[in-house]
Structures are given as C-alpha cells and as structure tokens.
C-alpha cells in the first residue's frame, strides 16, 4: 500500500466543475452540474446526497471521464485529469475505481466473472495469467464469495452477490479512491447492511477513500465522514455527516430529512411547512438568477430570488452552505419545520 499522505494536499480536488447538456435549440441549457467544488482527503468517505435531477450521478460520470465537462476541472493527486488522454485514463483506472448501482447491468452477462475481473487487471498491470488468477481468487474470497465464482456467469448470482462482484472488480486493481454510485440503492435491507459492512472493512484494510453517491440520507450518514447535499446541480450544504444529519443548516437539507420516513411508529409526523407539489417546481427549469431552491423554500425572501447565494463557510469552518439566511436558521431554538424524531441516541 502507498504511504499515507498529509491532509494538506487532498487526493482529489474538484474545482468549479460544470457539466451542461443541451436540450434542443429552443430550450435553455440544462446545467446538470453547476460550479461544484469539493475535496476528498486520504482515506476519507465523502457522501453526496441528492434526489433525481440533483446532478450527483452526472458528477460521478464526469469525474470518470464518461461525460464531457463544460467548465472547471478535477485534480487527482495534483494532476488535472479532465484533460487526460485515453491511455492516461487507463493508467488512472488503477487508482480510481467505480461501483455502479444496478447489479444486473453493471456486469457483462456474456463474460465470466473471471474474465471481467482479469480485464481490469490487464489494463492496469503486467501480471502473468497465474498471478491474475491468484489475485482474482483472493479478491473474490475477500468479498465473501467462493473462488470458483470466477468460472461462472453473472446470471448465476443474486443481486447482492453481483454487487459484491462489482466491488471486487473495482478493488482488484488496488485503487486509492472508489466512486460508489448508488452502490447499495438497489439492494434489500439485509443485503445492504452486509455490503455496507464490507465496504467499511475494505476501506480499513486497503486504506481507501470513497466518494459515496446516494439518495438515502440514513445510509450516507452512516458511511460517510462528510456529506455534500446537492440540489439541481449545485452544492447547497456540506458538513460532517453526523452534525449535518442532526443539525442541518440549509432549508433543502431540512426538507429532505423531514421527508424521510422514520422506522419508528411512536413518532408521528407533524404537518410539514414546506409546499405541496414539490416536483412541479423541479419540472420547471432552474431559475436563471437567484437560489435554485427559492421557488420551494419556506424562508425565501426577495434577495433569495434575485441573487444566487455564495457558498460560505460556517460553524467554525466545519460547514459550507449556500443560503442567504443561514445565520437566522442556524441554531434556531425549535426546529422550524420539525425534523421529527431525530435525536442523537448516543
């Protein structure tokens, strides 16, 4: 394993990244990712949370070079990888792994597990066939499968098992950072727990960093060190996982937390203060000026509609938030819109 670098220089640094999609001649550009910046440190898990349309998936794909970038860059160990050539991408794939969401389409059904894993090793190292097979076998055992799985096809495995195979594929090249794009979303609860535990163990054993993209705040809070909250392509809040979950700043984060159903029947949901028919707002294009959340926000004022809020550092630098009124909202005595039932139990 490589030596642990000082936290002064982050492993990955995303700077003012923007990804735009054109929707046709007469419509405005879709800013799927809009001026996003954040860093991932060594052996850290950064969680990215958002609903559909937040841009979190596009962000992951842009980092991997699967989607063209409109502006900004991504630095990996100081090197700008947005301009990487295809051969440089090949080398990079030894450092940057990815686990996708859908265990049924992330593995080529016409190739055996062994072939799929060996293919990853081909691109990034010069091992002999025996060495590759050994590595593949070790990796498969490590993720909880028998070594003879290498001779079988994906159709022989369940969803949870396939996701383990996907993890094995990402890790067989011993990367430094793994992007988990909704890696546990499609799994049953019990399988999800197993896979989350596996991911944590592997992080410890292989000194990995994760960029964990998901929409389930409970999962992200559990696995991540820091969380970024995305809304319609923009970062609206960033902070330490636990603190963000129990004391969110941004109105959207609050709305998200309010909306998540809690598995505890003693907590009865108070009527939410936020507007109904949320997604109609999401169907309309992002307003050109002002905060993207303003149409839905219970606290908006005219400055919110006029000016896009700048991301500011707050709570002694632990947090970043993009809201004009975060000062009023921070530490408000009672939860203004009722983040019910979420008390820290430890």
């Amino acid at each position, binding site marked *: 394993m490589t030596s642990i670098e000082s936290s002064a220089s982050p492993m990955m640094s995303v700077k003012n990244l923007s990804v735009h999609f054109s929707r046709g001649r007469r419509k405005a550009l879709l800013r799927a990712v809009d001026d996003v910046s954040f860093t991932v440190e060594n052996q850290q898990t950064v969680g990215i949370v958002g609903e559909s349309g937040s841009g979190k998936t596009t962000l992951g794909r842009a980092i991997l070079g699967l989607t063209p970038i409109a502006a900004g860059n991504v630095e990996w160990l100081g090197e700008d990888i947005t301009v990487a050539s295809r051969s440089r991408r090949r080398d990079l794939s030894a450092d940057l792994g990815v686990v996708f969401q859908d265990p049924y389409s992330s593995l080529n059904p016409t190739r055996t597990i062994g072939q799929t894993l060996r293919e990853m090793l081909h691109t990034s190292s010069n091992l002999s066939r025996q060495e590759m097979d050994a590595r593949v076998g070790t990796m498969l055992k490590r993720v909880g499968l028998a070594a003879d799985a290498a001779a079988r096809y994906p159709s022989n495995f369940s969803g949870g098992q396939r996701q383990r195979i996907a993890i094995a594929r990402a890790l067989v090249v011993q990367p430094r950072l793994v992007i988990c794009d909704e890696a546990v979303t499609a799994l049953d609860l019990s399988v999800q727990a197993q896979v989350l535990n596996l991911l944590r163990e592997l992080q410890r054993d292989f000194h990995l960093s994760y960029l964990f993209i998901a929409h389930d705040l409970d999962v992200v809070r559990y696995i991540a060190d820091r969380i970024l909250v995305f809304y319609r392509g923009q970062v609206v809040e960033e902070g330490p996982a636990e603190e963000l979950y129990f004391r969110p700043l941004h109105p959207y984060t609050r709305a998200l937390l309010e909306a998540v159903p809690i598995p505890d029947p003693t907590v009865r949901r108070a009527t939410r203060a936020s507007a109904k028919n949320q*997604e109609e707002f999401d169907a309309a294009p992002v307003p050109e000026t002002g905060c993207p959340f303003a149409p839905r926000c219970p606290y908006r004022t005219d400055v919110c509609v006029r000016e896009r809020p700048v991301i500011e550092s707050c709570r002694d630098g632990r947090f970043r938030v993009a809201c004009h009124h975060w000062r009023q909202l921070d530490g408000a005595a009672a939860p203004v819109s009722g983040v019910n039932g979420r008390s820290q139990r430890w």
Partner: protein
Amino acid sequence: MSIAEADPNGIIQCTPPKSARFLHRLLRRKLAVAGIAYLLALIVTAIVAPIALSHIAGQSAGSLDAVRAQPSLHHHLLGTDELGRDVLDRLFVGTRITLVGVGTAVLVVLAIGVPLGLAAGYFGGWIDRIVTWVSDLLFGMPGIVVVLLVLAVFPYSMLAAMTAFGVLVSPAMIRVVRVSVLPIERELYIAAARAAGLSRPYIIVRHVLPRVSGAIIVQTSVMAGLSLIAQSGLCFLGLLVRSPAPSWGGMVADGLQLIIQDPWLIWPPGILIAVTVLVLGLLGDVSRDALTEAWAAPVRSRRRPVTAAIGDISDEADAGALLSVRGLNVVFQSRGAHTRVVDGVSFDIAPGETLGLVGESGCGKSATAMSIVGLLPGTGQVEAGSIFFGGRDLATLSDRELHQVRGRDIAVISQEPMVSFNPTLRIGRQLAEIVRRHHHVSRAAARSRVLDLLAQVQLPDPAAVAASYPHELSGGMAQRVAIARALAGEPSLVIADEPTTALDVTVQAEILELLRELQANRGMAILLITHDWGVVAEMCQRAVVLYAGQVIEQGPILPVFQEPRHPYTKGLLTANPHGVPSSEALPAIPGTVPAPGQWPIGCRFKDRCVLATGECGDGTIPLEPVGTRREARCLHSAMLEGECA
C-alpha cells in the same frame, strides 16, 4: 456478525457451469443436428455433384446424351422432365449455383450490415444519423427492380446480381444490429469499461458484439432465406443462369411450361427451396438459443420437496374482516417446473385499516397481493387457499366474475405509474373510461367526475393533466393520477404495491400523506406492500412480515417494532443504518434468502439465525400466537420477549 465468513449460501444456489463450447451446446439439440446435417449435405452436393454428374449441365434439348444416358443410380427417383432429363440429378447439380448465390448475398449483408449497425448504435450522434440516412436510402430502393437493372447491364452475372441484392437488403441487418446495440450502450458495464480506459474498438468487439450476436445470427438466417428466394426467383425468370444449366428456380420455370401435361414437375424444386429456407430459419433460432444459453439466467429447478402448508390461523374467515386470506399458495410454472412462491399465507384486513405487507425481494409479497385480484403475471396461479371478500371466495371466481370486483371493490396502485397508462391515449380519456365502467353516467358527467377526482389527489391543474399524455407527466403526478384512477370505482380496499419506491423521497412523503388523507376521508382499507420499514411505521396499523413465501410474524405496529418476536424481523429492524452510529458495524444478517424452490425443510431462516437449534430443521414451524392479535413463526420467539429492538 461480520462478513469475513464466506457467504455459506453463496454458490449453493448456482447451477453447474454450462459447457463453454458453443459447438457442444449446439450439437446437444436434435433440431440443430438435423439442420446442420441437411446443410452439410447441401454443401457436399454443391461441391461434388457438378463434377460427378458433369454431363447433366450440358444436357439440352435434343441432346442425344439424355436419351442414351446411363440409368442413374436412383432410377429416376423423381422422374424426368420433358426432355428426359432426370429431375433429381438436375437438382443436385443446381445446388452449387444456389449456394454460391446465397453465400454471396449473405457475406455482403454481414460485411455491410454488422459494422455499420455497430457503429451507428454505439457511437450515436452524426455517425448514427449518416448511417440511418444511408440505410433509409437503400431501403427506399425497390430491390428486385434494381437487381434487374444490374442484370440488364451485366447479364447472367451471379456475382453482380447477388452483390447488388445483398447491398439492397443490408439495411434490415443495419437496423437490427443498431436497435440491439442501443440499449447495450447504456448499460453500466460499458460505462465501467470506458471508465477503465478501454479503447472503443475493444469494447465494441469484446463487450457489445457478443451481446448482439444472437440477433445477428437470427437475422442472418432470415437474410439467407430471403436471398435464396430471390436467387431462385431470378433463376426462374431465366436471368441468372444460361439454360440448359440447371438451377432450382429454373426448374420451376421448366415445370411451369409443362403444367398441363405434367403438373408434378414444379413440386420437387419448390419443396426443396421451401425446406431449405425453413432449415435456415430454424438453424438461426437454434443457434441463437445455444449461443445465449451459457449466460442467460438459469432455470431454478426444485431440489427439495416443498413442505406442505398448514392452515395456521383457524380456517374460518374472520367475520368482521373486510378481506380474509387463508392458506394462500401461489405457484409459477416455468419450463415444466412448478415453483411455489407463496406458501400458506393468511392474514386479515379490517375495514378502514392499513395493513403493511413487508418483506424483501423474493418473499412473495407482490404475488400475494396480485393473486387477490387474480392478476398474477405470466404463468402464476393460485394453487390453494381462500381469499374471502364480500362474502365470496375470490380464489374460486372465474376471470369474468373477478372482473366485476376489480376497480369497483378492490383497486390496485402499482409501483411504476408511468407505464401503467396507455401511452397513446390522453389521461382524461383513460380515466373517463374507468369512471363510465363503474358508474353508468354520460360522457359529460364522466368528464366532470374525472376532473373532480384529479382535484381530489391535489393536482393543481386537473384540466391540463386530463389533456396530457402519460409521458408528459412527472413520476409523482403520474402516481397521483394512478391514485385517482384507483378511487374512480370507490373501492373499499386499495392494494398499493410499492407505490412510492420509484419516487424521490420528498415526493414520496407527499404521496403517502395524500393516501392517509384519502383514507381518512373515505374510510377505505389499504393493503400496503413495501420493503421500507419507515413507510410501514408511518402508514400502517398492522404489519405482516413475509420471508421465503411464509408469514413469519404479524401484529399491531407498535409491538412489532418495539418488541419483534421473530429473529428475522428483529434482524431487519436493527440492520437499518438509521439508528446505528457510524463507528459501529451494522448488525447485518448473514447469508441470503433461499430462493423459491430451494426452501429448506423446517424453518427457512434457520441457516441465518443466531437462535437456531437442531429442532428448527425438523418440520414445518407453525405460526403461534405470541400476544394480542400477534403471531410469530419461531420456536424461540419467547427468547425475544422483552427485548427491545
């Protein structure tokens, strides 16, 4: 409970690896063997016959050779034509021309169709547009006539004619390949390969091509058949082969001349052509099956006998209940194997109550719900049990009788609202049809009822929604419309099958609130199928937990959450990251759910259970009462008494 132990069930459920050699798989099928033998026979004939029977080719009218011909080996099995030429011999000799022609056309089609189709499907963009345009262009040419033009310029040239034909029909191959490639290009393993920096040609050849090979094979066999028909047609017209050289099509023409004297003569060549086309098509299908067999999902065969279901609750229906399910068994049939997916499930729903049917994938909750209204997909059917509703046993009703119940008394809301509407009709019209079905009102009255319903589900602009098509709505709106549709018949029970799983969490919250309000206003019962315990906690008064086709626990919501009496329920509740600090490992349940058809004897959860003992594997575990209106299927449920989740 860490995952360092290898998953004990990891590989047991897999079928043994299939033979990796395509040829072996192919030859295991009798039809394939027959077809290949036939083709080989043709090829051998094509090579040998013109040499062995060299005198045939030159036989023309008035040739004394024909008269003095040695008696053929088969004694003119199929007769002779008007000139005394032996029919079977001529068929043999004509085979070469036929195969050469078909081979030429097929090669051209493959050479043009496959690369262009791959490029168009994979790269998209302007490459796709150009290829599609060229393909449309070629497609727009009247095929045979252009070939005739070519023949007018290059008379009797098989090469020119069949090449031209191949070029003209290649758009069909381009389209098939392109359409097959398009969904693959979006699959995640392609994205993974690209992220790994693999080159595009490599990805296309090693990842995409194997996936479309099935479609290519089938289409090739179709094209081969088409070429055969075209080629014989051109021979029939006398344009490809100079007489007296024999050809299959030419022999039909000869026979036609003699149709009055000897109607038999057209049959041998015609049957030969038809049979060859059929064999080609058949081989294509069989090869495609053999090719994809290795990596297609295997059929799960039953390896252990399924334990018979015992009527757990007293078999009489609960008189006060709106719906009483007793001992429900649901089976699916696939390739001759019966697989039971729901095993002896029983529960009640009281009027106005929300009952949660909770479980993970494969537990049988959807099958249970769909069997109530007789809408099991595909080959599913209710094998045993009763479904008491409104004084009748729905399980015994025919489809016609059930159709009276559907929509009017029991309505269904499904998981994917967008696809549950007819994409070619406007929403208003579809809803009006339902309204008129259940309340015999005029069109105008139906229309206003539709608008009323849409307003009840809190859509801000009912008229606009009614005028829209389904694909114009967002997910949440579509689900609201689906709820409106369910309400149209004013049912007393609504079955909601994972109604919010496909929606964003903020939208989900609104939909659930809507359902609660509607229920409160109308007093209808809801059977809510879900895997999300948060939803259960928010919506339901009672919960029924399913595992491997059986009810393993049921009861009022609060006790089930706070004091679960089955290790599985408890395991699920504690495995939720919601309550777990990030410094701790999640208390995960090891192992995986046994698949239908592979349920173990005794407790189906025993292989994963910390409390399991030897007696757990002895026989069917009964569902025992463990409290007021509570049941659990566990021999050790008493051990969980008093433990908080």
